[in-house]
């Protein structure tokens, strides 16, 4: 039953992200979510704890729980942004949208045809919910750093899927994805810094003048 508790905690972190109004809090929440997912990987495969499972779980937790937050806080400091999230959609409305997204994910998870050996439909629902929340964060927040967070949450959703559906070997794929995300966050951090240096802010809303 422990995996389910972790899944519920993941859902709660997602809702916390939707309601957060401070960037620092959001980054920390994403870090917590990353550590939770590392635990999930360990618990979901408890019967067959091989070295690769450990590698993915511990590697993922360290990367998402420690390295990414550190990179993001560093980017925040160097870009000297204000601490507010600056949403297009306010926290209450975001939370309501999140609840709706949770409903949609639960419904989709029941309809989605799954291969044999999937852990539970709750897990699929949580994965879908994380993906939707990530997309929502990307769409509904102004600052570029929120987009990075949204991207991370989406990746967490995909990771959850992977943990639930795959057995041993595709964990290697998971490692590859994690490496990609690491590079992406690294690059985004640098891009954030350069955007803020060039335009004195990282508000993507103001970048509309760049369109064709």
């Amino acid at each position: 039953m422990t995996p389910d508790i972790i899944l519920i905690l993941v859902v709660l972190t997602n809702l916390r992200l939707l309601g957060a109004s401070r960037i620092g809090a959001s980054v920390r929440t994403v870090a917590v979510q990353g550590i939770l997912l590392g635990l999930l990987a360990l618990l979901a495969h408890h019967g067959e704890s091989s070295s690769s499972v450990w590698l993915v779980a511990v590697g993922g937790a360290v990367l998402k729980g420690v390295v990414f937050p550190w990179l993001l806080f560093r980017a925040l400091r160097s870009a000297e942004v204000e601490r507010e999230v600056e949403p297009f959609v306010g926290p209450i409305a975001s939370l309501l949208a999140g609840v709706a997204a949770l409903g949609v994910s639960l419904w989709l998870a029941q309809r989605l045809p799954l291969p044999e050996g999937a852990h539970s439909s709750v897990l699929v629902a949580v994965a879908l919910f994380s993906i939707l929340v990530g997309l929502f964060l990307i769409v509904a927040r102004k600052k570029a750093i929120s987009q990075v967070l949204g991207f991370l949450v989406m990746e967490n959703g995909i990771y959850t899927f992977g943990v639930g559906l795959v057995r041993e070997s595709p964990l290697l794929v998971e490692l590859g994805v994690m490496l990609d995300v690491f590079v992406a966050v690294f690059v985004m951090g640098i891009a954030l810094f350069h955007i803020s240096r060039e335009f004195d802010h990282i508000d993507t809303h103001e970048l509309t003048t760049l369109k064709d």
Partner: protein
Amino acid sequence: MTVLLVAVAVLVCSGLAALLASGSPRAATALGAGGAVVACVIGLIAAVPFLFGTPAESLRLAWNVPYGTFFVEVDALSAFFLLPIFGLSALAAVYGTEYLQAWRGRKSPGATWFFYNFLVASMVLVVLARNGVLFLVAWETMALTSYFLVTLDHEQDSVREAGWTYLVASHLGTAFLLAMFVLLGRSSGSLDFDRYSSANASALFLLALVGFGTKAGFMPLHVWLPEAHPAAPSHVSALMSGVMIKMGIYGLLRTLTFLGPPPAWWGWVLIGVGLTSGVLGVLFALAQHDLKRLLAYHSVENIGIIALGLGVGLVGVSNGSPVLAVLGFGGGLLHVLNHALFKGLLFLGAGSVLHGAGTREIDHLGGLAKRMPWTAATFLVGAVAISGLPPLNGFVSEFLIYLGAFNGVTQRAGVAVPLLAAIAGLALIGGLAAACFTKAFGVVFLGEPRSEHAARAHEAGAAMRWPMALLAVGCALIGFCAPFVVRSLASVLPLVSGLAPETVGEKLADAVAPLRFVIAGSVAFLVLVAGLAWARRRLLRGRTMAETVTWDCGYAQPSARMQYTASSFAQPLTTLFAPLLRTRCKLTAPEGYFPRAASLSTETPDAARVALYEPAFSGVGWVLARMRWLQQGRIQLYVLYIALTLLVLLVWKLG
């Protein structure tokens, strides 16, 4: 089979080597052109036996692409198309070594040879491929490499415009082919050619007609031809017009082999397409002032003749008339080879004129026969051949189509009227083509130079002269060895017509008999001409000869500008067909007793482009301009579009 694949490998490797050697133009040219020539010689040696009875060979390898297998095969039909591909590519490569010198210092020959060799390799693969995915990959490689060759001079706006037109037309054509292969694959469960079934045959035929017709240049899908051919370097124009557009014909023929017995209306459609392309193509050619544009419209005309032949053949197959089938398909196929020879020759000749005189404007040229005797002589051979006059090769293929159509008219009442139309159309096309080439040859090579450019023209070097001379010899050889050439079609025709080889051989033998008379007559004519020339020399020996100006209408000082121009020569015909051509004419007529300034300029824009494509594309542009509100420049909004689309698709699929 292996040897052919080796030829492809040589092409690919030499192309890459030329690209790597870009730093040294000499090395790049040697590697690129040398590789192309070696590969083409290897390929020719490997391909010819399949035309003379060697059974088809195939090779099937697994390929890591969904629905794709690396399945290649060479049979008589493939081998027949390989002949012009390898032959003309080798000659055009030799020609290109000198022709590309004009770009020295401005363009790296490495990239040009890379695209050239890949173009040849992709055409070979198109002909060998027996899997839909492999075919489309080769087809697209062919389109892209030729696009990069067309836009060699991409600094010029007109060239970029032409390249863009070509690219758009080419991709629209491929879209139809994609639909065709998807349909074929869906009904049979595999994209390998040998497993296709013929469900939905008529829809597939129409898709193939549009898709392959765009590449071949059927009117009104031909819009890219008169733009792309003048823009490309001349040896590339020769290759594109001589061989690449024939890939459309090959595709159509190959598709017909999967589609089972054809209904009669397919034949009528092809005859209609052929007549339209043939007549309109030659008419638009008459109205052109640009030598290469004129030749490009003649490609449309000749593709029309080929379509006419195939149409007659299809009518024959569906009506159960072997004579019609054999002669129609035979004439169409032979015209593919013939057109590759003489159109290649003419484009190389036009390139030599451009190289020597620096302009393609017919009205600025004149008197080049004295300055460029080789080019003039070979161009004349090409002009006679393309006009379908005996004893050269153009006559042989048109003669087969005539013969077939006449047979059909006299023996089968049901098909008489359309076949009569085909005969009349073919005759009209032949006459107009002869008029057009009289104009082109007469104005460019005879008379006096009309401009400084033409007066300073110089003959091309050996590397450009020999390919032209060889092509001219090829035109004459096919003409004089017609009985042998026609009989060697016997291995190809059973594949496309579905008839027994014995029947095909019998019908071809019947057609050969009248050809012998024609050849005997031609030989007698040539002997007579030679005799007269000899007599003239003999009579003039020991006498003084003086040259004087042509009759000068009472003017004391005739100038070269008083000669007939191309437009004035063609005027009677262009006026007759004015409603079709819609020539735009700007005339400032001379006025008063002592007129000073007067001017006349005419321009004949492509009717299909003006009436069909420009309205259609501006309509598309209008619709897209209305959609601009979607593009707000906000990342959030774009992600929202993607997310909503995915969510809706997911819900729709699972709901």
